[in-house]
């Protein structure tokens, strides 16, 4: 029995050594892969000054400093595994894509090559960051985590509800002096080092090197608080955005509430839609502030209403004196909803095909317009659109309404049970976004769902009862024969 145990131990040691051996890459081989895949941004010398570096925000890592954001090490340098994981998973929310398409051996070689850019820093073996014993997520733990979140003032950068709207936000700079944004804690899928509880706890413990995010391992009241904080942060948002593909608007009898915080809207499931920076026409938006809107929609005999939720860390209205643009959002539809699949150019149409814009702007309210391209927008007179928005803790919630019937040929008609093309655009005025500097989507489809008749509650039970009766009849006849 004991011999068996020894064998198992020996085998597992050999296995783990073999694994580590497979990871220790060949720097020379890594150089070839680096020059092909990495140098465009990170530069031939690894100094983060590749030809594309100026277009990338956040900027590419300068490997010569040996400063790496994502570590599981208590010391300054990351482990080989940390570097390997970043290459494999990429840095979500940045231009660094996941390189899991590369063979594992290439990634191992890349790790070895990256270390040669800062040989002094990697002289000493990294020390593992130990975490206290894991505390499972529970209401008590989350409550304690919230207390600690307030006590250690995470809100200073990350905001009271975690939407990156804290008062220190505007002042934050990385160690190279470039502005840097705090993480939006409600969007875990964008967490650079992963959004799992253990990964969050590790980030809290080690901090994020080269950024303002400090280490908290010795700066909580009790060691377990690291886990309570991680559990609380994980509770602030879902692990994945579960983006919608087909959008729907619910049929309603009577009035649709104007208040964005009405129970009616809270009951509806949000349909999350990802937004990307507009990078086709100058001025472009390489690091958009708004990366998602959540849509809830409803329609009645008389009107159609869109409830749009999006995170914006700064509430800003147009200010001519400061040349500051306002926060805004718009829903785009084809001006004429044609049969067939052809739609106007997604970027606000073109000369041939116009789009219709239902727009809301902070300070100005709802407007209607048509556009033949992003610089050719013509407001529509006699707008009947209305908008009501609330802003709190880094988030806008807006109800944007319009009559269902179209007034004249400039506006599209909203018909039920038809796939209506729709696209979204958003501007964060506080980040200087205006005009073509926006975030946007391509076309989606929206369907105004027809009211479901009550017959669905009647017909199936009737069918079931009839079937049961028929079965009983068959059984009875069969028994009688027997």
């Amino acid at each position, binding site marked *: 029995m004991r011999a068996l145990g020894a064998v198992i131990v020996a085998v597992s040691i050999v296995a783990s050594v073999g694994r580590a051996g497979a990871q220790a890459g060949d720097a020379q081989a890594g150089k070839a892969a680096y020059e092909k895949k990495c140098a465009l941004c990170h530069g031939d010398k690894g100094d983060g000054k590749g030809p594309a570096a100026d277009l990338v925000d956040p900027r590419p890592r300068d490997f010569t400093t040996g400063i790496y954001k994502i570590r599981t090490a208590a010391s300054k340098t990351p482990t080989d595994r940390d570097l390997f994981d970043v290459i494999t998973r990429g840095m979500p929310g940045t231009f660094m894509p996941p390189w899991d398409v590369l063979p594992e051996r290439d990634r191992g070689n890349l790790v070895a090559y990256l270390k040669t850019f800062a040989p002094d820093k990697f002289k000493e073996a990294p020390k593992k960051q130990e975490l206290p014993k894991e505390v499972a997520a529970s209401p008590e733990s989350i409550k304690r985590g919230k207390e600690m979140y307030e006590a*250690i*003032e995470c809100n200073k950068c990350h905001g009271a509800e975690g939407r990156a709207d804290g008062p*220190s936000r505007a*002042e934050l700079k990385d160690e190279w002096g470039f502005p840097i944004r705090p993480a939006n804690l409600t969007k875990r899928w964008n967490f650079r080092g992963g959004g799992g509880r253990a990964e969050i706890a590790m980030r809290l413990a080690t901090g994020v090197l080269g950024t303002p995010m400090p280490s908290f391992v010795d*700066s909580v009241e009790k060691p377990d608080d690291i886990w309570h904080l991680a559990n609380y942060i994980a509770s602030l948002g879902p692990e994945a955005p579960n983006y919608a593909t087909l959008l729907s608007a619910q049929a309603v009898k009577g009035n649709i509430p104007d208040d964005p915080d009405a129970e009616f809207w809270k009951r509806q499931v949000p349909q999350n839609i990802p937004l990307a920076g507009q990078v086709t026409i100058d001025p472009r938006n390489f690091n958009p502030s708004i990366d998602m809107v959540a849509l809830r929609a409803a329609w009645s005999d008389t009107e159609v209403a869109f409830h749009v939720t999006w995170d914006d860390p700064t509430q800003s209205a147009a200010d001519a004196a400061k040349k500051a643009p306002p926060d805004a959002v718009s829903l785009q539809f084809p001006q004429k909803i044609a049969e067939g699949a052809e739609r106007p150019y997604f970027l606000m149409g073109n000369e041939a095909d116009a789009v219709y814009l239902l727009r809301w702007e902070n300070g100005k309210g709802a407007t209607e317009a048509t556009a033949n391209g992003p610089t050719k927008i013509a407001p529509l007179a006699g707008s009947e659109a209305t908008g009501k928005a609330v802003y709190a803790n880094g988030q806008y919630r807006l109800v944007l309404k319009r009559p269902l019937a179209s007034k004249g040929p400039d506006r599209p008609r909203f018909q039920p049970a038809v796939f209506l093309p729709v696209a979204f655009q958003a501007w964060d005025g506080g980040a200087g976004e205006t005009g073509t500097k926006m975030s946007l989507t391509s076309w989606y489809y929206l369907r105004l769902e027809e009211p479901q008749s009550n017959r669905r509650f009647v017909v199936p039970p009737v069918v079931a009862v009839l079937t049961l009766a028929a079965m009983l009849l068959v059984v009875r006849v069969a028994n009688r024969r027997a």
Partner: protein
Amino acid sequence: MRRALGAVMAAALLASVALVVQRPGPVNAQGGGTVEVTVTYNGAPVIEKLKVNKDTEKCGTEAAIEKVVVGGNKGLANVVASVPTAKGAPRMVKATVDQHGCKFVPHVTAMMPGELELKNSDDILHNIHTYSTANSSINKAQPKFKKVMMEKFEKPEIIKLTCDVHSWMLGWLAVLPTPFFAVTDAGGAAKIENVPAGKQTVEVWHETLGKQTKEVDVKAGQTVKVSFEMKK
């Protein structure tokens, strides 16, 4: 019994005070001299002002970033004066930086390699973020309940201190290879005592105006004066 205890405590208190007050590594007090350094600046003070948008009850409504502080007679404050050529035992004086009123107090701290005491007397979150190359740079949170932290700086170099929560907070830590140092006061004066006799080099460093050195001849039991003029 109580009186005896009191006496013991008083003695212990005295001993500890004596320990802290003990002046810099007087290895050869019998052969030491005093160096009096004065630093002047021919330009205007540079103090950047910034409007504060948070923690105003602790930080005030306007923050001042003191880059060049000029006192009476053009005296330049916050200059580290040291005698790098003189070696001696480590100082017993504990180096302390307090984060008070959303400022690093003092603005410039000099110490020998060893531990630095970091205080937070503001009752709000600060984070101590250092910029250094010889020592590992650190970025540690110091929430309101963490009144004191100890940090080790083992290699001589000049380290910038910042707080990301309050971006205007700026401080400097001079980790020096010698126990013979002082930081100039508001009048631009610094006094370095017990410097070993002989030819020595006096170095002065200012955060924006740079470094200067001068040779001096230190004589036991005497005071030698040396003055520097910093230029833009």
